């Protein structure tokens, strides 16, 4: 047994143990923290599978932002899970076992781990992506080429999902919902913690700088718009938590955030429309410049920035909408 297998087995064991613990816990704050641990271990497994971009996203989204969103949601409601009567647990267990069993059964059709003649390895498209992309687009990180250029339309769909989520939260908790009660909302503030305040103020520029680095370095290393947007949002959320929501909303007024949500999506769509006006097909970045590779670079940069803007605005808005609510315990 190699060290690699051993690490994999221990990580998977931790993953299973975490999942079982989460399902047994009634204290929801602890469950939220453990679900962050679950994401972190998943990210480690992705690194072992050499999927660094996915690992990065999992770490940023699963640990960074969704934990805070869960905690923000929990602050509004009771933090202990109600006891489910036994007769209502049975259908749930049946569904879980059925779905799990189906997945295990289906996984037998998957090619063996690392197998050299799996469809992914043998399909000519893989070779195209890995080699042709260096000539077509000329950026070292093939994941970024695939995500932003070859499969640009799919990524547009993903951004649309994030956009829809943001709009849904705004429709439920935003300006159209009940008016905000400004009194009892210092629940989430950590303003008394002086050390935390100093350290956060010290780290804040570096967090935002790192987000920009992740955004613009996505062509060369792991990273890109989604991760950068989430890191940006995490920075704002940290600021809002430590210095109070009012201060955070002075830095970025909510109206600006609301405007930025569609702005990113429109920028993405706009790039596609400009491509069509320039005589190419939708999201064919070659048309953006006389040199196709330079056009691809520009297109990918614009599209990644668009993703970053919408994701950051949506995540921050979701958190602010939760945190602005009055707790109804």
């Amino acid at each position, binding site marked *: 047994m190699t060290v690699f297998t051993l690490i994999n087995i221990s990580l998977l064991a931790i993953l299973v143990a975490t999942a079982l613990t989460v399902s047994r816990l009634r204290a929801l704050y602890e469950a939220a923290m453990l679900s962050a641990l679950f994401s972190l271990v998943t990210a480690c497994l992705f690194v072992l599978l050499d999927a660094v971009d996915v690992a990065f996203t999992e770490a940023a989204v699963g640990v960074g932002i969704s934990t805070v969103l869960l905690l923000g949601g929990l602050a509004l409601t009771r933090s202990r899970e109600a006891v489910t009567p036994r007769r209502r647990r049975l259908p749930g267990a049946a569904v879980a076992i059925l779905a799990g069993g189906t997945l295990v059964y289906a996984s037998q059709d998957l090619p063996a781990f690392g197998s050299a003649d799996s469809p992914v390895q043998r399909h000519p498209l893989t070779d195209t992506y890995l080699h042709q992309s260096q000539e077509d687009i000329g950026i070292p990180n093939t994941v970024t080429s695939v995500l932003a250029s070859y499969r640009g339309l799919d990524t547009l769909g993903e951004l649309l999902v994030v956009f829809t989520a943001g709009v849904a939260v705004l429709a439920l908790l935003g300006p159209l919902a009940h008016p905000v009660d400004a009194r009892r909302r210092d629940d989430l503030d950590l303003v008394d*913690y002086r050390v*935390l305040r100093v350290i956060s103020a010290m*780290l804040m520029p570096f967090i935002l700088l790192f987000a920009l680095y992740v955004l613009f370095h996505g062509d060369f290393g792991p990273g890109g718009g989604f991760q950068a947007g989430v890191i940006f949002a995490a920075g704002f959320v940290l600021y809002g938590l430590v210095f109070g929501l009012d201060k955070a909303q002075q830095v970025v007024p909510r109206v600006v955030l609301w405007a930025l949500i569609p702005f990113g999506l429109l920028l993405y769509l706009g790039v596609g429309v400009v491509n069509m006006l320039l005589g190419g097909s939708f999201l064919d970045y070659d048309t953006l410049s006389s040199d196709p590779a330079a056009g691809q670079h520009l297109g990918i940069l614009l599209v990644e920035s668009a993703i970053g803007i919408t994701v950051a605005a949506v995540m921050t808005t979701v958190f602010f909408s939760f945190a602005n609510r009055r707790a109804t315990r």
Partner: protein
Amino acid sequence: MIVLDIASVVLLAAGALFVVSGGVGLLRFPDFYTRVHAAGITDSAGAGLILLGLLLRTPSWETGVRLLVIMLFLALTGPTASYVLAFAARRDGVPIWREGDPRR
């Protein structure tokens, strides 16, 4: 080079020891504050020594700079996290364990 290797192994082993002792402490210490202390050891001494050990075997200076930045980041955030945890517990009135009390 052999000196560097030995030094790196010693640092890595010391770091691993601190991480393990932090884990043991987390399970065995009697109350919240002592457990925070044990968990804090993992972040500061454990991770710090492991990163130092790795620093001695970096192939290029770019990797070394990254390790240094991570070390600096951990040196700032680890103690802050421990402090905030302990402070929040104190504010919430979590009692301090004294000799002879039962574990909680």
